[in-house]
């Protein structure tokens, strides 16, 4: 069943987690999501209960909006699993390895397409992860093979404290790439004739 949460529902949850953290009730890092409520509520209107959601170390809002029970999530966080929120019933899958969820999500979307399913995969990534090579590979592959997957970039301009656009640069001028076509005469290796030693 689709859950409808308000901005206050979300911020109340994170404020409660914050307090638990301050009270030393959580013995693992927590990555709070406050600031993205409005955008996420809008995006999750399109996400169905049977869809998959892939997220990162910062996944509390994604889990709640996908339908994960608030009490269950709080228990997971208090058991030091804030960065590893996995809920099979709600199809929520996370990883704290940046860019790591991109190919896994792509594989799930390949399976859904092979199965003829109408379900979709939604991938939530930070702005630095979005610049990673493996993420580009997956976006290109998924788009060219028409896989049922949507990429959501959560752009706060920072990767930890590193300004993403400053380190990547803000413009892509025409790269100096020379590409030429040719037809090969010989196979990949050797010359096409068997050599007996």
């Amino acid at each position, binding site marked *: 069943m689709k859950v409808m949460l308000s901005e206050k529902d979300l911020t109340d949850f994170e404020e409660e987690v914050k307090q638990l953290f301050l009270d030393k009730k959580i013995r693992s890092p927590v990555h709070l999501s406050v600031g993205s409520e409005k955008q996420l509520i809008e995006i999750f209107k399109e996400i169905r209960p049977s869809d998959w959601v892939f997220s990162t170390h910062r996944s509390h809002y994604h889990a709640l909006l996908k339908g994960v029970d608030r009490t269950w999530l709080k228990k997971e966080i208090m058991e030091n699993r804030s960065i590893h929120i996995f809920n099979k019933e709600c199809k929520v899958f996370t990883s704290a390895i940046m860019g790591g969820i991109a190919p896994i999500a792509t594989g799930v979307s390949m*399976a859904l397409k092979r199965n003829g399913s109408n379900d979709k995969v939604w991938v939530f990534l930070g702005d630095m992860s979005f610049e990673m090579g493996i993420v580009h590979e997956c976006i290109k592959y998924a788009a060219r093979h028409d896989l049922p997957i949507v990429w959501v970039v959560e752009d706060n301009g920072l990767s930890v404290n590193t300004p993403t656009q400053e380190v990547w640069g803000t413009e892509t001028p025409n790269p100096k790439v020379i590409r030429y076509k040719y037809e090969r005469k010989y196979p990949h290796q050797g010359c096409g004739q068997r050599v007996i030693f």
Partner: protein
Amino acid sequence: MRAKGDILTYVEEIAKAMEMLATNKRSVFLGQNVAYSGSIMSASLEKIPANKKIELPLIEDAQMGISIGLSLEGYIPISIYPRIDFLILAINQIVNHLDKIAEMSSGRFKPKVIIRTALGSTKPLYPGLQHCSDYTEGLKALVKNVEIVKLTKSDQIVPAYKKALENAIESNKSTILIEIADKYCES
């Protein structure tokens, strides 16, 4: 022509093992030179139905992630890396996800992948350091939940792949099987 009961060669046992894996309705074979010829492993896949073969671009780490994703939706991927030197590019997904997801998720997600790779052949041609290294012990040091089997003898091959399939079906466990390409040409 071989008579029934003749001992199969190493490469024949490999082909037999692949056909055995293909009989499982959820198995899929993926990698480069899987649907197309070109690698030393391609010949062993010739009898695998086309709808079970997924040819991928050169995206080794992504290939392992894709294999994990297919497995999360119930497939049994046979993820093929023709040389162990190329499998090294997929170590991120193997170590950080395949080996750890079941533990990280408290057993809620249990991906299972059968990984097929080989030590590159050195005879009759020496292919250079990047094509015939042996990282078996290094891999063993990096994972604790993925089983690693080196296939040194031909009579070991079919039972090892059968066990890898059983691991995937019954215990949701992944296996890396390391073939020895120098044995492909043995008669």
